[in-house]
């Protein structure tokens, strides 16, 4: 188990690589992009992948915001919780996928998103309420709500990548009963909590942490791409062979770019990067 610690300081925005939008802006941008992509299940997998990146990035930012107040071992737990919300919300969403259809747009799935937003808000209120659990974490209500929404959007998008549609039976057949849901679950939760868990410390910096999330999304797309390409029933259609291969290539590019960028940034921003050396002697 890992334990967080150390005083939390306001981040210095002046040095190094920076990420322009702040927490609220990033949330709004990600939510809009992900929602627009999720209600059109006919889009190619790469476009949906962009939606997944934004949804997971938002979720990761919420984990970071919520965990910053010394959650410590709770960092992984809250990421798993978010993905758990996501699976539930996505199942609710695809159950309503059939209604409210307007040609290729399926806004019915957003019922799942709204449901999870409400559940997240309620659990946030319950945990923070003095009389019930009394965790007293600032912004927990908003954080939990955002985690519910982001998790649901990410899972819905991944279902739609693998199954090629949001039809309940198709999703159950092609994404749930064959076990690929396990890899979606585990990599989504990693993309949400691993960045902050891995960069935890007093000198953690938001742009650096965000890069890890995108890098893990890249890995997710490589695995999903392999799966889609191997199990595809058509060549050119949605969730076909071409979709799978393009997803692998996209994932590979995303992963390489952000992995190299993260390692370079971290090595530059560490106290020093040395080939080898003895440890500093303490009196």
């Amino acid at each position: 188990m890992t334990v967080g610690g150390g005083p939390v300081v306001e981040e210095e925005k002046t040095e190094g690589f920076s990420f322009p939008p702040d927490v609220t802006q990033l949330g709004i941008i990600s939510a809009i992009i992900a929602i627009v992509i999720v209600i059109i299940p006919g889009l190619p997998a790469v476009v949906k992948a962009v939606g997944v990146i934004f949804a997971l990035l938002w979720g990761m930012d919420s984990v970071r915001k919520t965990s910053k107040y010394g959650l410590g071992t709770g960092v992984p737990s809250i990421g798993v919780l978010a993905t758990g919300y996501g699976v539930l919300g996505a199942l609710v969403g695809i159950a309503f996928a059939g209604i409210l259809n307007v040609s290729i747009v399926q806004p019915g799935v957003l019922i799942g998103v709204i449901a999870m937003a409400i559940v997240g808000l309620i659990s946030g209120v319950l945990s923070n309420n003095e009389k019930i659990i009394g965790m007293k974490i600032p912004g927990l209500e908003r954080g939990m709500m955002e985690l519910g929404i982001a998790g649901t959007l990410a899972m819905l998008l991944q279902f739609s990548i693998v199954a090629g549609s949001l039809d309940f039976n198709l999703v159950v057949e092609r994404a749930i009963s064959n076990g690929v849901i396990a890899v979606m679950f585990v990599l989504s939760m990693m993309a949400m909590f691993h960045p902050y868990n891995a960069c935890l410390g007093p000198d953690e910096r938001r742009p650096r942490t965000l890069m890890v999330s995108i890098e893990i999304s890249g890995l997710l797309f490589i695995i999903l791409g392999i799966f889609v390409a191997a199990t595809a029933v058509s060549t050119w259609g949605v969730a076909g062979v071409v979709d799978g291969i393009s997803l692998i290539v996209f994932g590979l590019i995303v992963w390489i770019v952000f992995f190299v960028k993260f390692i370079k940034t971290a090595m530059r921003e560490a106290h020093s990067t040395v080939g080898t050396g003895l440890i500093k002697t303490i009196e």
Partner: protein
Amino acid sequence: MLFAWMLLIVFLALIACMFEDLESDIGSQSNPNSQVQLAAQIGQVNRFFNKAISGEAPSYALYCTIAGVVAYVLLLKDVNPLLAIPIGALAGEAIHVIFSVTAHVGRTAAQKRFEQPIYLDVLYGHLLPIATHGFMATLCITAIAYIQCNLGTLSGMPALDHPFALPLLGFIWGITVGAIGSSTGDIHYGAEREFQDRPFGEGKRVVYHGKITRYADCGVRTQKDIAYFCAKYGGPITGFTFGLIILFESWRSLIGMMLGGYLPLQEAMASDTLLGTVARVATELIPAIPAAIGDLTAIIGIVVGLAIGIVLIVGNVVIVKWARKRYGPFVGE
């Protein structure tokens, strides 16, 4: 045949959990971790590999699920399992190494103000032991998941095939192996090393926690020393624990199936003799027969399980009492 496959699963579980525990020692996910992982924050600059990939349970779920998915895809394409499972494990370990690098570099960079440098030789030098130990663990877990998935087909009774798909079983087994490796065999952080001067090896002030990361018996300590130390006792005992759990669990289910009449029924139904025909016709005509046999099987299995649990609890209490009486508190050199 069924019993032979079950024993093979037990043996694989033993190896998997042993390597899992040693791997988590090399990455300081298990021994010594917590405060020690953040030793630099209390001034104890160290040469440890800081592999903070959540707890062991979710991280092993990650590698085993990826191994399971890759193996599943290869098996769908009719690749031989002897090739598909190692390739899956290799993919899982590739992910493991990537996550290790980001965790170590990220955590070390976040400890800038405590003057903790990134030692490149520590980074590169630990990746290979992590990958090799992790590979053994992931390989065994994926093999277990594969055997369970096809247990019925392999042992001639198709009804015994596991209803879950390979990746899901990998996920469940990954969580299990990680949880057991994380809770058992952590001797380096316990009485043997850090808390040697306390009665029964209990607590010490936080200020001293980081010291365990600095010097070994000879020179500066790294996790390779810890893996060497734990490989003698902590790793094997963890493997033994997991192996025993699987052994008791499968043993009680099989005893239930034997005594409850489920296995004889399946065997009879699978055969081509007159008895087989009678069994098939009878189960089809009177659905109450298989239902009653199923109930009996479950009840016997649960009773045997409860008995094993009680024996283990009593045995533990006796052993702890005996050890405390026999050896007493630690009295120093």
